């Protein structure tokens, strides 16, 4: 099989992983070294595909041969997809060649499970080790790890990588039993726990002044949305647990995507892209806006409103808390106003020390007036109590009905 065909198979096999972050690594660069590479600061997206996803890392599988049978996955053993495998040298060379041309920030390497977890993990680690030790590569490396691999191997992966991850895939064991029978939430959580413990230790050594610590700085995971019957509440509760217990940097929500090799166990559906988007918004509200899952979703409404963003939906359910005064409201309260983001809230807090804030000020901060007006009092605007009480308020925010096409 020629190199180009292999690349197309193994990149195609990797594209269902949404993770693309190349940020959050320890600052470093190639000055004084003998290879290429730098990390630190915000990540860089070197290209975008028409699916709207950024291309930051060379994201490939070492091999798409796999003994597992996860029904959402193109690479499962029951799939008839064409199989290929790269050697470690091939991946190393491709990574360096792409990197030197400034196509990528680094490598995101994953693999189908061959033989067993340890054997597979060793192959993946060998690539990272060669990049780091032979080529003095100082770019970003993200390694996918296998929860059942021995802790020593996961530790080794973390020493070469900037980020490591284990995909949870589905939020409940019940769903995994049906769709990914080889996977276990308990084992995944325990592996994430051990990883967090090592990340904490490395962080403590770094803060203690040990500049030579070579260890990943974070872990992340991915869940597939829309493959099982889990509700958004199931997803968010699980994310909440993962962020709290294992200090994950990110939980990626990936809409279940049609694949060219559909399984009898899991027939294809259109990808729930808007649901994926709403989950990201809710996730953000939990992490940066001080919302609890119980405020975003309730047992009666376990799924997010697809038509409205979750903060707006929350505000409409909690109208008694509004309007708030832009001049005097606390940061926490302002963060809950639909249409105000973290950046603008912080700017408002600075500005209001010197001036009475008016609507024009908000316009200059590029705040959407349509969105904030019903909820916010300014020096020159007092929202109509009538509107805040009326049923029309929700209608005001609904997406415009699509005009019917003639014919």
């Amino acid at each position, binding site marked *: 099989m020629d190199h180009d065909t292999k690349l197309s198979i193994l990149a195609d096999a990797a594209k269902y992983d949404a993770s693309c972050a190349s940020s959050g690594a320890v600052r470093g660069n190639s000055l004084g070294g*003998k290879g290429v590479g730098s990390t630190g600061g915000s990540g860089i997206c070197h290209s975008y595909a028409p699916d709207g996803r950024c291309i930051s890392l060379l994201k490939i599988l070492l091999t798409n041969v796999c003994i597992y049978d996860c029904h959402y996955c193109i690479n499962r053993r029951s799939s008839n997809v064409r199989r290929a495998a790269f050697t470690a040298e091939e991946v190393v060379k491709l990574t360096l060649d792409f990197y030197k041309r400034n196509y990528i920030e680094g490598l995101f390497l994953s693999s189908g499970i061959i033989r067993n977890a340890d054997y597979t993990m060793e192959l993946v680690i060998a690539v990272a080790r060669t990049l780091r030790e032979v080529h003095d590569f100082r770019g970003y490396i993200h390694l996918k790890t296998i929860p059942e691999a021995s802790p020593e191997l996961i530790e080794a992966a973390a020493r070469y990588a900037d980020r490591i991850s284990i995909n949870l895939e589905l939020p409940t064991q019940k769903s995994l039993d049906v769709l990914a029978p080889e996977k276990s939430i308990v084992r995944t959580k325990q592996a994430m726990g051990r990883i967090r413990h090592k990340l904490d230790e490395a962080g403590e050594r770094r803060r203690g002044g040990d500049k030579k610590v070579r260890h990943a700085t974070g872990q992340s995971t991915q869940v597939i949305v829309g493959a099982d019957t889990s509700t958004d509440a199931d997803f968010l509760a699980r994310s909440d647990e993962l962020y709290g217990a294992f200090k994950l940097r990110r939980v990626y929500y990936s809409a279940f995507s049609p694949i060219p090799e559909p399984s009898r166990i899991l027939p294809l559906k259109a990808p729930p892209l808007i649901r994926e988007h709403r989950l990201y918004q809710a996730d953000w509200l939990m992490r940066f806006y001080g919302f609890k899952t119980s405020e975003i979703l309730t047992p009666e409404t376990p799924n997010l409103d697809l038509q409205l963003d979750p903060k707006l939906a929350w505000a409409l359910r909690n109208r008694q808390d509004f309007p708030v005064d832009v001049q005097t409201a606390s940061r926490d309260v302002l963060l809950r106003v639909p249409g105000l983001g973290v950046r603008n809230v912080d700017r408002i807090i600075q500005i209001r020390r010197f001036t009475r804030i008016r609507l024009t000020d908000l316009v200059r901060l590029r705040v959407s007036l349509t969105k904030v007006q019903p909820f916010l009092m300014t020096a020159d605007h007092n929202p109509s109590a009538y509107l805040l009480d009326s049923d029309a308020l929700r209608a005001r925010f609904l997406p415009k009905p699509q005009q019917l096409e003639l014919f």
Partner: protein
Amino acid sequence: MRSVDPGEGFTSWREIARRMLGEGVPPQEILWEAERGLFAPSRVREMPTMKLKVPAAFVELAQSVTCHSEPSRWALLYQILWRITRGGERHLLTIASDPDMAKARMLEKNVRREIHKMHAFVRFKLIDTNVETGRERYAAWFEPDHFIVEAGAPFFKKRFANMDWSIFTPKGCVHWNGELLTFTAGIPNNPVENPDALEAAWRTYYRSIFNPARLKVKMMKQEMPKRYWKNLPEADLIGELIETSRERVKAMHEETLRPEKPAPNNAYLGKLKEMSAVKPCGYPPDPALSLAELAAASATCRACPLWEHATGTVFGEGPRNARIMIVGEQPGDREDVAGKPFVGPAGKLLDAALAEAGLDRTTLYLTNAVKHFKWIPKGKIRLHQKPDAGEIDACRPWVLSELKQIAPDVLILLGATAARSLLGKPVQVTKNRGLMESPELAGRVILTVHPSYLLRLPDPAMKAAEYSKFVADLKLAGI
């Protein structure tokens, strides 16, 4: 009205701005333009310029804004400078909603974004390789909207320190030879038109990483505006990928559903199956089990509800023939994730105290009265909760089995929970600390505080005193 030439960028503009400010020339009397007329003021050198104190944030803002190609940027910056220094508005920089500041911040943002896009979209091509040294030489062509080559260059120097490279643009060029960055004037045309040998592979990658089932063209164009496409070797694939996506997805939906293939005969898959089968743990534990078997059995214990929100059971750890056994309360946040006892802050303190008492941790058996972490969420952390009597009692058979297996000479109980568990009744630690009479447990039983109690003491003097008492208690084991 005066006409002044701002020159090339920040440095030349600053020089003139200082002079104008020194002379007290208000913003409305200056026309900033690249003058080539008869009365063009020479690049101001005759007049000594005054040094001004301005907020560092202004300098940073001006350095960015002067890179913008917007002709009004010079006047805008002078206007802001005037207002800060002469207008008494020193806090102006914090007023993001001020019209001048809003404009300046927008220009700054454009420049920052353009630098970021330069870092993203420059595509190097291999020019040649030095046969003797093996050092490679690369070059790229980029067409920025703003004058950002100087500001964007250090990134490439740090990232590609060990190759030679040039980036050519109409707004200035930059070159790196391994030692020095040099800047030269811009050139109008791309001097490196031939494709690089790796572009074919890159295009294959781009084509393959695209998922036709999730088309989000607007999102792509927002982040990778069309004006960059002509210098991106992958961009001419976009049209074709979009056009064929609908058909590709339709074909997927028309595929016959694939049946399951049987699992291969693989020992590892068998092991996974065995691991996944939830075994009843046998509670209370069978007295015939070995220490390792006890640890394995406890992993699936459901004798109290704590297992549900814990990552896993944290069983005891240490040599089977340990002379001393230490029992704490329950695993904390760190012990829960690590799956090992006493690895968190309290564990670190215990380590220090043990060392001071002359005890080697690796020779001790350490465990907890309760084997699952009990917690409630508080903001982003998991806040430890004391186990209740029911939970302590539920876990007692495990810790008693450990005690029976280890049969230590000395048993050290840390805190009230450990005391409650092993002595079977509530005991006040501070009143009864030190040696206890409990021969059915071990030859010598020592009761002392839990190290987390020491961590919680706010007063350093009291902390030091309590720590000494703690070490003294531990020393009772060593005699």
